[in-house]
C-alpha cells in the first residue's frame, strides 16, 4: 500500500526576476524510512 500526500505550502517570489523559491523544506531523502509523527518537512518562518 502507498500514501500520496499533496499539499500547499508557502513559496517566496523574488522581486527581481519573479522566480519562486520554496519556503517549505523537506527534511527527508528518497529511500528514507519514516515513522508516523516524524517530520517530513517544515515551513520556514
Amino acid at each position, binding site marked *: 500500500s*502507498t500514501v500520496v500526500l499533496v*499539499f*500547499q505550502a508557502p513559496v517566496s517570489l523574488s522581486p527581481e526576476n519573479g522566480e519562486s523559491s520554496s519556503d517549505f523544506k523537506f527534511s527527508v531523502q*528518497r529511500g528514507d524510512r519514516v515513522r508516523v509523527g*516524524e*517530520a517530513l518537512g517544515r*515551513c520556514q518562518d
Partner: protein
Amino acid sequence: TSLLKKLQKTTQVRASLNGGSGSSKGNGDWFLLPGATVATLLMLGALHARRMYEDMKVVEAHEKGTEFEFQPDVKSTFLRLLPLRSISRCWGVLTSVEIPVSLRSHVYGAWARAFHSNLEEAALPLDEYASLRDFFVRTLKEGSRPIDPNPQCLVSPVDGTVLRFGEIKGAGAMIEQVKGFSYSVFSLLGATSFLPTLAKGDMHDESSEAENASGEKSRKSWWSISFASPKVWNPYSARPTKGLFYCVIYLKPGDYHRIHAPADWNILVRRHFSGRLYPVNERATRTIRNLYVENERVVLEGLWHEGFMALAAVGATNIGSIELSMEPELRTNQAKKKLLHSERPEERLYEPDGVGRTLKKGDEVAAFNMG
C-alpha cells in the same frame, strides 16, 4: 541431477531391503511424490533467489544514486489479465480465519521475522489477535509514535519508505511515478478536486477527460461556492505565495498500517475510486503504467493552516481495503455489481456548510486492511 540420483539410489536400497517381487511398481509410485515435491521446492527456491538478487540490485542502484527507468514487461502485462480484486478478497477471507490460541504467537512471530515487524510495539499481547487480519491492523502502545510538536512542520502520516517528494510545477501538474513516467495529480485526486492550480482547465490529461463530463459543470460551481464560503481559503488569491508539494510513501507488509493526520487538518471531502488492485512494490512502480491512478484508493481533501491538503490512500493486491475512522460504514474492495466499470469516483462531502471533520496532528485517519 545428483539429488535425483541419490533419491534413485535410496529407492533401490529400500527395494532391496523390502525384497520380493512386486515391490518395484510400488517403489516407482513412491518416487513420484518426493520427485514432484523436490522439483516444486527447487522452483520456489530459484524464484526466491532471483527475487533476492533483484532486490539486492535495486538496493545497490539506490546506493550508487542510479535510478531505474520506466520499463513495462511481460509480467506487468500478465498482471492485467489476472482477477486481482477477487484474489485480494480471497486473501482477505483466508487471513480472517481464526487461528488457534496456541499457534498465534508462532504465526505472528513468523510474520514479524519475515517482514521485520516490531512485536514489542503491539498494543495487545499476541494471543489476543484472533486472526492474521486482526494482527495486521494492530494498534500500537501509547507513546510508540511521538508526534513532532513543531506547528510549522508536517509529519509523516504513516510508517514507510519515502519514494518521491518535491514541488508540483508547470501546467501539467504531474507527479513522477518513476523516471520516465509521470501521472497527473488530477487523475490521482479526481477531476473535481479543488487543488489550487494556475489554470485548471489546462491540467487535465487524457485519462481525466472522461471524468470531465458536461454534467459535472453545475456540480463544480456548487462545490466552488461551498469551499469559498467559509472564507478559509481562496486558491486564486493565495496563488502567488503558495506552492504545491507532494510526498509518496510506500508501506511494506511488515509496517504499521494505520494512517494519521500529518497536520491539524479540516477534511472536507472524501472520494472513493474503485479501481484495480495491482501490487505497488518497487518493481510495480517501474513496470505498471498509471499504477496509483488505476488502483483502488480513497482520497481525503481538506485544509491545513497553509492551504490545501489531500491524502490518497492507495490499495494493493494484498492490502486491498481501506477503512476510515470518521466513516466506518465506507466499504472498499467490494465485488463490482456492474459489468461496465465507471471511472467516476464516489464522493462524500463532510458537512455541507464547509466545516468538515477537524483532526489534530497525529489523530488516526484510516487503516489499510488485508483483502
